[in-house]
């Protein structure tokens, strides 16, 4: 057996395999529902209703998608340049930490000055969390997969230490939790009475900006070229090392915005369970989006919808919400495989 590239795939080639992948994902989900003793179709109905079936559900999905858009963008930007950033989780916490340090009263500024400062300071913190790994890769040949992955645990322990120590809320009844942000440091809601904060809008705007940078600017051209053909980029005279460092700054900054938006927009304070793995799920989001910045928005909404819907379903149908994890894993695996088959066919020899 061997894979053969298809020069110009037709519409059946382009859309067939992804549809089959979606079908396979549904099939796995139904089998799981059957095993759990529920009616498969009803389970799916409840997942869909739970994700988008009501105003409340829809807003919940949008809220859940917000950090995933940021981390998805962070991963997409880095992976596009073949900088394997597995550390979005650490960068997220770096952003959250910075937001809490500066936003709990240290700066007595009005909101219009404080919010941009917090966002930029968060981005800086996140960028630093990645740029050292990129530098070590370029200078010392240290694999960034290892450094960024392991740094996640270092960061989580560091945050835990701060929450037990200097950042601990004295009024927190002993819980490891930071003080609450001052009112000026909170991202307002998009509309009065709408349970959706400006973090979501910021995420969508970021996706648009990243897309513009990648497709329209010389820096973006360099980022894509370094990823798609490093020897050719170097031969053409592109500043390869500078480009990889720029990618690291951008990627780390985007992931940190997830932390900023979660603390400033959603939670108001920092706890150790701020992120249920948004940094890692960002990898799934970016892969499903084929690393396209606008695709990241769609993929994040899909992933968030599955999570929110599965939560709602498990409350009513009694099927464990682990179904969501399995569904996403299946969706990712089958989709990656399916996308391979949109470009290659298998020949038996």
């Amino acid at each position, binding site marked *: 057996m061997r894979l*053969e590239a*298809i*020069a*110009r795939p037709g519409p059946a080639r382009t859309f067939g395999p992804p549809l089959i992948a979606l079908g396979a994902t549904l099939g796995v989900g139904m089998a799981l529902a059957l095993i759990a003793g529920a009616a498969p179709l009803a389970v799916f109905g409840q997942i869909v209703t739970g994700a988008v079936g009501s105003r409340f559900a829809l807003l919940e999905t949008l809220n859940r998608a917000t950090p995933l858009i940021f981390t998805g963008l962070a991963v997409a930007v880095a992976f596009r340049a073949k900088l394997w950033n597995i550390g979005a989780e650490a960068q997220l916490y770096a952003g959250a930490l910075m937001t809490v340090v500066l936003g709990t009263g240290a700066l007595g500024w009005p909101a219009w000055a404080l919010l941009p400062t917090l966002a930029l300071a968060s981005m800086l913190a996140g960028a630093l969390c990645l740029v050292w790994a990129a530098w070590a890769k370029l200078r010392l040949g240290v694999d960034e997969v290892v450094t960024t992955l392991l740094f996640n645990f270092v960061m989580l322990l560091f945050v835990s230490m701060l929450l037990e120590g200097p950042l601990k809320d004295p009024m927190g009844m002993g819980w490891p939790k930071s003080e609450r942000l001052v009112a000026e440091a909170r991202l307002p809601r998009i509309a009065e009475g709408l349970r959706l904060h400006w973090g979501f809008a910021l995420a969508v705007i970021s996706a648009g900006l990243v897309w513009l940078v990648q497709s*329209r*600017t*010389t*820096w973006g*051209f360099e980022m*894509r*070229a370094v990823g*798609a*053909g490093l*020897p*050719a*980029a*170097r*031969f*053409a*005279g*592109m500043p390869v090392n500078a480009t990889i460092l720029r990618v690291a700054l951008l990627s780390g900054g985007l992931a940190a915005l997830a932390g900023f938006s979660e603390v400033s927009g959603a939670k108001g304070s920092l706890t150790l369970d701020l992120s249920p793995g948004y940094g890692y799920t960002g990898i799934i989001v970016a892969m499903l989006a084929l690393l396209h910045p606008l695709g990241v928005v769609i993929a994040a909404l899909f992933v968030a919808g599955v999570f929110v819907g599965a939560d709602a379903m498990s409350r009513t149908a009694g099927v464990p919400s682990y179904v969501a994890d399995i569904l996403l894993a299946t969706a990712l695996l089958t989709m990656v495989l399916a996308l391979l088959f949109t470009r290659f*066919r298998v*020949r038996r*020899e």
Partner: protein
Amino acid sequence: MTSPETGAQASADAEVLRLDGITKRFGEVTANEDVSLTLRAGEIVALLGENGAGKTTLMNILFGHYAADAGEVRVMGRRLPPGQPRAAIEAGVGMVHQHFTLADALTVQENVTLGTRPWWRPGGRAAARARIEDLARDYGLQVDPDAAIADLTVGQRQRVEILKALYGDARVLILDEPTAVLTPQEARALFDTLRRATARGLAVILISHKLHEVMATADRIVVLRHGRVVGERATAATDPADLARLMVGADIAEPKAMPAEPGEVLLRLDAVSTPPGATQGAALDRASLDLRAGQIKGIAGVSGNGQSALAGLLEGLIRPASGTLTLGNAAPADWSPRIAVAAGIGRIPEDRHHTGTIADFTLTENAILETYRDAPFARGPLIDWSAARAHAEDLIEANDVRCPGPDAAIRLLSGGNMQKLILARALHGAPRIILANQPVRGLDIGAVTYLQSRLLAARDAGAAILLISEDLDEILALSDVIHTIHAGRLSPPVPRERAEVEALGLAMAGGGADAA
């Protein structure tokens, strides 16, 4: 077809191999269509055709790497099961690939005997060694059985490949472009081996696109074009022009170089050494060279002898470790690909797929890889894609690049069209210095002719050109002055009029006069 039998082959008329109606398709591409071929013991049949004519596919079917869509292969009258290399080997088919399949860390003997007997059987090493030594003597394949493959030259490795096939009792020996990596002298030794083999009743298939080589060695010549057999000739009854016509399907006029009128020195290397390990192959060792306006300087050599380092130097990818590189009258303060481009060096790299282009990028994106930061493509931090696209369209139009359009991914293009775009990019803006590293390797004759005539035209317009090639014929056809390169050292220059293949070949093998 009656071929004039030579020598004592009366007993060797038995048919050992027959291909019958072989057809193989890859998607919409037909690689072989209804190809039939017979081979008798004791003869050398050349399979001649351009790159992409289907030679290698056909041999891969014969050897069992691919299964044919239609047709069958018979060895000694027995049908070979399709798609099974093991069966082909057992039936007596031995293949020497273009890229060798030897284990570098093992010795010659280990490589030759690898897989021939179960590992748990004791003894046999002495017997195997005696057999290898016999074969080596009988066929003129001198090589030390205890040498590690990693320590052998390319020519010696090829001998090991042939030994391996003979050790496996091959009756049919297939050689895929065997002389591509050899010096003329090594090639002659190879043909001597092949003649000894046929004298002992072996049958040989020689895959080649070199006319003179085929004329000199084969008894019969089968010409493939677009996957079909377009002609079969006894060597005695044909000539190179006839074969070229069959191969291409039309008469071709080779670009003819007029005598050069060399001008001032535009680039000079003075005892330049490059850091070891910066590229594959040898580093440059005190290489001196000057490139003059209106002159093509050819670098002949067997691959891995420092060509990559020399090319990397001119491309800006490698800085001299010692010695000086002078552009015009001054040594550049710093050296990088960007500075090289800015200094007016047009560069055609060796590897068009990985270095010359980015496969998944469009033609437009590839066209501006070197110039995206300059006007009119850059406006501040932004790229003006409409200007870039218009530029790509100009290049496509002016150089007859066959492609779906400027927005198509460049990986969809054939090698020749890809190379035309690289050439167009390199020659845009009329650079004073041009580096052409293996510019036509693997291209069809149409593209070869076009690229070579563009290089000659650039020379006549006053450019200084450095042409690096492993194909001595190409060097001799285009260069005004020739250096050979061996182990990182450049020989003194020889004007083409005084260049002799013999002497060049010796120098390529390291036996020539040392560089001063």
